[in-house]
């Protein structure tokens, strides 16, 4: 079909009512702008909140758990092995938290192509001693460089230099809240006691702020050697292996694999932080719902304007049909009008949406719990722009569909005879 002719007619009809057309286009522009801005902002926020967890948490954590043996002696007995055996009050076996053969496991993990990095860790319960008072705490013995590489440890050390943890012997980076409680300044020496009663002085070289106040009250970091010294164990002792993956989505599957392969507990990030994923999902859902609602409202605007235009242009439609334009041609003319409004309004919406996102990106957002964030986070994902323009086209298509169909069904005889 002669598309140029259809286009010409559509454009002249559009320009004949350019004010109404403009209002309709502004409706689409506004909704797409809001859609883009809302989703970019929400997604930026989600990414930030997720990264609080994802960047700082191992994707898969390998550790030993103190638990009762899964196979009790009676299960091994030939006589009762096939029966259901009920044993009450089973106690965990006396097992160390240490990962046996940690070096070999780490080497095996490093050669796995799905793994982007590993970091060993020792977790130890301690008491911070302040005068006569003991505060409970957790000391994480870390491989400072590996930890920084995988989990951007440096970002959360708000005061002091993280690398001092490695260079200064017997040093500690305290959680900010814990340090405030202990009135410990940089360079001070604090005393910690292990549950076994060993006491050790540690020099404060920095403060650590994770964004989670409760965590900062108890957590602190030392180098892995210091932790081993503190616990009085050998240089091969570690309790956790943190694995970071190239693709976070395969974590649950990989955790299962490692559990069997290394005979260890393996916790994947999705299981450990399922509440975060739910939160992100709901936030995204709400943004989409609001965006789509706005678009549908804009769609009704287009529907109204097209309907009005069809009533006004009844004569024109009748004569077009009388002189040989088919119903399908008339349908195309009005669909073209609707889609032009959609595309034009949509593209403007994308531009304004980008502008609003850029503005939001400039708004200062300083919070004590998020030391690395200075302005509101915005995600400039091209996906939103593609979805935005597709939505604007689809909505305007449907808004134009019914009026266009009505126009195509106009019987020229009724119009012409009615004059």
């Amino acid at each position, binding site marked *: 079909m002669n598309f140029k002719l259809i286009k010409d007619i559509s454009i*002249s009809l559009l320009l*004949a009512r350019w004010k109404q057309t403009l209002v309709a286009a502004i409706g689409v522009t506004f909704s797409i702008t809001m859609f883009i801005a809302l989703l970019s902002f929400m997604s930026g926020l989600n990414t930030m909140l997720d990264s609080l967890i994802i960047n700082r948490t191992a994707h898969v954590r390998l550790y030993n758990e103190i638990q009762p043996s899964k196979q009790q002696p009676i299960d091994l007995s030939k006589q009762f092995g096939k029966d259901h055996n009920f044993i009450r009050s089973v106690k965990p076996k006396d097992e160390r938290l240490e990962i046996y053969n940690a070096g070999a496991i780490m080497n095996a993990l490093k050669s796995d192509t799905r793994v982007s990095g590993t970091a060993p860790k020792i977790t130890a319960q301690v008491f911070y001693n302040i005068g006569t008072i003991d505060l409970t705490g957790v000391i994480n013995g870390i491989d400072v460089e590996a930890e920084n590489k995988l989990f951007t440890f440096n970002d959360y050390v708000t005061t002091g230099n993280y690398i001092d943890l490695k260079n200064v012997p017997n040093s500690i980076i305290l959680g900010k809240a814990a340090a405030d409680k202990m009135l410990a300044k940089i360079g001070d020496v604090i005393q910690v006691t292990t549950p076994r009663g060993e006491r050790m002085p540690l020099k404060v070289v920095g403060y650590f702020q994770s964004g989670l106040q409760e965590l900062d009250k108890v957590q602190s970091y030392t180098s892995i050697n210091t932790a081993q010294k503190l616990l009085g164990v050998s240089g091969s002792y570690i309790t956790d292996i943190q694995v970071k993956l190239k693709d976070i989505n395969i974590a649950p599957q990989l955790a299962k694999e490692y559990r069997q392969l290394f005979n260890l507990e393996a916790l994947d990030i999705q299981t450990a932080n399922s509440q975060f994923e739910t939160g992100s999902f709901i936030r995204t859902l709400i943004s989409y719902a609001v965006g789509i609602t706005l678009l549908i409202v804009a769609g009704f605007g287009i529907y109204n304007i097209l309907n009005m235009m069809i009533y006004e242009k009844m004569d024109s439609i009748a004569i*077009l049909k*009388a*002189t*040989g*334009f088919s119903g*399908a041609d008339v349908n195309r003319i009005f669909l073209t009008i609707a889609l032009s409004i959609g595309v034009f309004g949509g593209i403007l919406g994308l531009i304004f949406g980008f502008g609003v996102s850029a503005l939001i990106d400039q708004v200062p957002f300083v919070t004590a719990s998020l030391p690395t964030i200075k302005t509101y986070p915005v995600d400039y994902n091209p996906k939103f722009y593609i979805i935005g323009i597709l939505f604007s086209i689809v909505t305007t298509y449907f808004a134009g569909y019914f009026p266009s169909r009505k126009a195509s069904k106009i019987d020229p005889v009724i119009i012409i005879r009615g*004059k």
Partner: protein
Amino acid sequence: MNTNVLEAKKISKYFYDPVKVQVLSNIDLAVKRGEFISIIGKSGCGKSTLLYILSTMDTDFDGELLIDGINIKNKKESELALIRNQKIGFVFQFHYLLNEFSVLRNVMLPGQKLGKYSDKELEHRAYEKLKVLGIEKEALKKPNQLSGGEKQRVAIARALINDPLIIMGDEPTGNLDNKNSEIVFSIFQELAQNYKQTLLIVTHDNEFASRTHRIIEMEDGRIK
């Protein structure tokens, strides 16, 4: 070649709302090439209804209609539109020009739809038609800047653009004063004489009808 441009066989038509009324009964009609025919009759005798059936715009009738030898029964809406586009030119009581377009574009539109000529050629042809009707000077104006008589002449030019087999008119002078009616009639006459254009005009103006080649008088849905 004096074949029938248009042939109606036993055409009947009913209106169903609010009660079933027969408006046309067993109309037989043949239009030969080059004829200038007028249909007259009192209001409500069915002359316009017949015209709209003959023009393929109203397909709800009994009987047969052949245009240029083609039976239009059971044709799709788009096929009928094509027939109207190629073979029929319309002039109505009201001009039905599109105010968004210039006079020239209005004349060109059916031609652009047909797509037989390029836009350049069409423009030239449209000028020719306007020249025949003596309004080529108004070509670039918008229709709402023209007088009623001029508008009607533009409508005739539009009807001519695809060199139709037949021009159908529904009271084409109905809205015009005597002077303009005379102009429009003389245009029709000139088309019939000089260009051998077939014309089928519905009118209630007996004086107009008396100057055509053939008069078909209708009464109560029949040809008298």
